[in-house]
C-alpha cells in the first residue's frame, strides 16, 4: 500500500515530538472533552485502557507475539508497545458485558431505564489493523460519531502479523484523524489526517517535520511491510473457503482446537453477542448484551439440539465467516490480519496456514 | 381379458397392454369393505393382493393392553399387501377399512406363477412393487424420526 502524505499544507501539520510531549496530546484531547483510551503496560502485557498521561513504561519495549505465545521484549525506539496486544477497540466500542436496559413492573406498566449514552472518546496509539477493524466492526456496532482515532503506524511487526496481505497495514489507511509514526530514538512523527485532527494538531507544540524525517518514517513502515512472514491471498481465500465445506482441513484443525473461544474474544471484528435477561430479588430486570462466540456449543442451539455441534463445523464457520462469507454480508473481509487469533490460541492454530491449505486444495482439485 | 379398472389404476400407469391382460387374468374379485371392517389379519395366509380404488385403509398393529396403533393409512391408488410375494406368505400387520373402501383383488398364487412364467411381466410388476415399498419405507423412516416432537 502506498500512502502519500500531504504535509504542512493548509491546516494540515506534521510535527516531530518525543514521548514526554505525547502527554500534551493526551491533555489536549482531555481538554477537548474526549476521554482518552490508549496503550499501557499491565502485568507484562500491552493493553488498552483509559489514560490520563502517556505510559512511559512502554518506551523501549514491545509485544512479541508468536503462535500460542506472547512475550514482552526490549526494542530500542519503541513508543507504542509494538505489534498489537490482546485488546482492540472492540471492548471499548461494545464492552464485553453491557446493560441494554433495566426494567421493573409498576402496576400493569413497566418502568424502563436505559443507560446514559457515553461521551466521545479519543483512541490513541491504535495500530492500523485495528483502525481498519473499527470500520468493519462499526457495520454492526458503530461507535460514537464524535470518537477520534489516532493511529500509530507499525515500524516493527510480530511473527503472527499478516496485515499487509489483508490490505490494512502496516501503514495507516482510512479511518484515522491523526497519524503517528515512530521513526527511531523515541521520536514520533505526528500528522493530521482529517479536519478534526488538523484542528487539534494546530494547538500542539512540536518541531515541524523535515522531509528527511518524513522519508525516514515512511521507509521504516515500508521495511516493516517487507519483514512480514505470514500472508493470506484474500481473494483466493474468499473463493476457496466458500467451496470447500467438506475439506479434511476442518477435521484436522478440530483435532487440535479446544473450542476455547479465545480467537473470537481477541478478534477485533468478531461481533457476536448473546442477549440475556436476569431478574434480581427486588424484581428489577436487566437485559445484558454479552460477548459470545461461535465456538460455544450453545451458540447455535435451537430447541431440540445444537445445530453446529462438531468442533470442525464451528471452526469452519468461524474461519469461513472471517475470510469468505463476511464479503457476502458486508462487502469486505472480516479479517484484518492482526494475528491475535494465532497468538492467543492456546495451541497456536494459524488461520493463515489453514486458509492456505484450503486454497492449495482447491488449486489442486 | 382386459380390465378397464386395472388399466386406470395409479399403480399400473404405463403398464403395457399385454401385461395388463396377464394381470387381468389374476383378478380374483372386486372387493368392498364398510368402515371398521377387517381386510387383513396378522398371521393370516397372504393369498391376495389388493389394488385400492377408493377409500382409506389403516395398517395397524396390536399389542396386549393398548389400543391398536395405526402405523400408516393407505388410499385409492395404493397397493395393499406384499407378504404374498415371499415365503411363508403370511400377513405381518392388520389392515382395516377406515371409510367405505373398494379394491381390485388379485389372486396371489396366480400372480406368483405369472411372474415366474414371464420374467418381463414379472420385472414390470416387481419394479412397481419395489417403488411402492421404497416410498412406504421412506415415509416410515420419517415417521420414526418423530420430527414434530422436538
Amino acid at each position, binding site marked *: 500500500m502506498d500512502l502519500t502524505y500531504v504535509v504542512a499544507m493548509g491546516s494540515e501539520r506534521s510535527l516531530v515530538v518525543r514521548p514526554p510531549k505525547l502527554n500534551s496530546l493526551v491533555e489536549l484531547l482531555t481538554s477537548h472533552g474526549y476521554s482518552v483510551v490508549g496503550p499501557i503496560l499491565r502485568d507484562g502485557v500491552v493493553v488498552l485502557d483509559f489514560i490520563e498521561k502517556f505510559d512511559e513504561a512502554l518506551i523501549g519495549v514491545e509485544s512479541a507475539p508468536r503462535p500460542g505465545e506472547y512475550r514482552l521484549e526490549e526494542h530500542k525506539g519503541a513508543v507504542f508497545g509494538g505489534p498489537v496486544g490482546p485488546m482492540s477497540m472492540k471492548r471499548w466500542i*461494545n464492552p464485553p458485558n*453491557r446493560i*441494554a*436496559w433495566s*426494567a421493573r*413492573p409498576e402496576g*400493569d*406498566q*413497566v418502568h*424502563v431505564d*436505559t*443507560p446514559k449514552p457515553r461521551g466521545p472518546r479519543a483512541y490513541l496509539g491504535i495500530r492500523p489493523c485495528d483502525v481498519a477493524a473499527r470500520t468493519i466492526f462499526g457495520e*454492526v*456496532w458503530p461507535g460514537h460519531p464524535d470518537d477520534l482515532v489516532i493511529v500509530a503506524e507499525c515500524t516493527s511487526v510480530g511473527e503472527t502479523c499478516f496485515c499487509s496481505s489483508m490490505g490494512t497495514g502496516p501503514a495507516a489507511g482510512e479511518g484515522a484523524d491523526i497519524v503517528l509514526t515512530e521513526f527511531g530514538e523515541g521520536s514520533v512523527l505526528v500528522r493530521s489526517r482529517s479536519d478534526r485532527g488538523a484542528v487539534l494538531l494546530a494547538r500542539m507544540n512540536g518541531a515541524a517535520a523535515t522531509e528527511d524525517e518524513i522519508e525516514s518514517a515512511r521507509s521504516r513502515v515500508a521495511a516493516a511491510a517487507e519483514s512480514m512472514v505470514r500472508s493470506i491471498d484474500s481473494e483466493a481465500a474468499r473463493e476457496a473457503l466458500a467451496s470447500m*465445506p*467438506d475439506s479434511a482441513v476442518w477435521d484436522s484443525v478440530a483435532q487440535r482446537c479446544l473450542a476455547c473461544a479465545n480467537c473470537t474474544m481477541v478478534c477485533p471484528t468478531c*461481533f*457476536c*453477542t448473546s*442477549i*440475556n*435477561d436476569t*431478574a434480581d430479588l427486588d*424484581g428489577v*430486570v436487566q*437485559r445484558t*448484551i454479552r460477548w*459470545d462466540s*461461535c465456538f460455544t456449543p450453545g*451458540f*447455535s*442451539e435451537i430447541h431440540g439440539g445444537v*445445530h453446529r455441534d*462438531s468442533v470442525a*463445523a464451528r471452526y469452519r*464457520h468461524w474461519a*469461513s465467516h472471517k475470510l*469468505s*462469507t463476511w464479503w*457476502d*454480508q458486508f462487502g469486505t473481509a472480516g479479517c484484518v490480519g492482526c494475528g491475535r487469533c494465532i497468538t492467543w490460541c492456546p495451541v497456536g492454530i494459524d488461520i493463515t496456514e489453514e486458509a492456505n491449505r484450503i486454497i492449495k486444495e482447491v488449486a489442486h482439485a | 381379458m382386459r380390465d378397464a379398472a386395472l388399466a386406470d389404476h395409479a399403480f399400473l400407469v404405463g403398464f403395457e397392454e399385454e401385461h395388463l391382460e396377464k394381470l387381468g387374468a389374476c383378478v380374483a374379485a372386486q372387493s368392498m369393505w364398510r368402515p371398521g371392517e377387517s381386510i387383513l389379519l396378522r398371521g393370516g395366509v397372504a393369498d391376495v393382493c389388493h389394488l385400492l380404488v377408493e377409500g382409506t385403509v389403516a395398517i*395397524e398393529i396390536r399389542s396386549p393392553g393398548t*389400543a*391398536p*396403533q*395405526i*402405523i*400408516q*393409512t393407505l*388410499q385409492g391408488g395404493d397397493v395393499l399387501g406384499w407378504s404374498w410375494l415371499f415365503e411363508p406368505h403370511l400377513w405381518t400387520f392388520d389392515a*382395516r377399512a*377406515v371409510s367405505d373402501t373398494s379394491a381390485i383383488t388379485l389372486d396371489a398364487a396366480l400372480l406368483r406363477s405369472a411372474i415366474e412364467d414371464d420374467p418381463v411381466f414379472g420385472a414390470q410388476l416387481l419394479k412397481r412393487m419395489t417403488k411402492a415399498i421404497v416410498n412406504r419405507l421412506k*415415509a416410515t423412516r*420419517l*415417521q420414526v424420526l*418423530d*420430527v*414434530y*416432537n*422436538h
Partner: protein
Amino acid sequence: MSTTIERLAATWTRVAATRRETADTVTLTIESDQPFRPGQFDMLTALGVGECPVSHSGHPRIAGVHEHTIRRVGAVTNALTAIKPGDTVGIRGPYGRGWPMEDLVGSDIVVIAGGIGLAPLRPVILALESDPGSYGRAALLVGARTPEDIQFTSDLDRWNASSAMDVFVTVDRADETWVGSVGVVTRLLDPAAINPESIALLCGPEIMMRFAATDLLALGLDPDRIYVSLERNMECGIGLCGHCQLGPMFVCWQGPVVPWSVAADLMRVPEL
C-alpha cells in the same frame, strides 16, 4: 437515529386474550398497531425470564391486534404460554422476510405445514380466505404428531368447508379412533393433485421441508417458487448477535422465508 443498543428495547403491551390450541401450545392476542407481513416474526419478552422469536399467526389485515402462537419448549416459552389476559409482554418487531404475498396473486398455491409450522402460515391462509378471488386453487397439507397435536382445528374445519381451498391432514401416529390419514405429510401430495405451476409455501421441521421440497420438485415445481421458512437461533432479530448465521445468510433478516433455490445448498452442508 437510534443507537444499536436502543434497537433492543421492547414495547410493553397488554395481552388482550389467550387461547389454548393444544396441550403445549397457546395463542396470545396482543394489542399492537404495528403492521406486519405474513411470515414475519416478533421478539416477545416475558419480563424477568427472557426473550424469544415468535412468528405472527394472526390476520395480517386486522388492525390493533397481533396473534402469536407459542409452543412450550423452554423457560421463555413456558412463561409466555402461562400469560393471562391483562398481563403485559414486551414486543419488538416485526422482523425478517415473509412469504411472497404479491407472487401468490393469481397463482395456485400449495401450503405444507408440519407441527407448529402451521402458525407462521396461518396469516397467509387467513389472507387467502378473505380474498379468495385473487388466488387460484389452494391446497393446505397439514402434518402433526398425533391427532391431539393438530393446531387451529376450528380454522381447519372452516377452511375445509370453504370452496377456496382443499385441506388434507395427516398424523404420524394414532390409535384406532382416528379416522383420518396416518403417515408423513408428503403422502398427501398424491391425493392433493398438485398443479406444477403452483407456488409452494413450506414450514415445519427442516427434515420435513427437505423431503417435501424434493417431492415438489419431482412433481415439476420450480425451485424459485417453493418457499421454506428456516429456523435458526435468533436472539436479536436484527443481525447483531450473529447466532442465526447459516453460511452467508443472517436468517433473522435475510430469512426466515427463502426460496428453495437458495435454501437447498445451505441445507445440503451438515452443520453449516
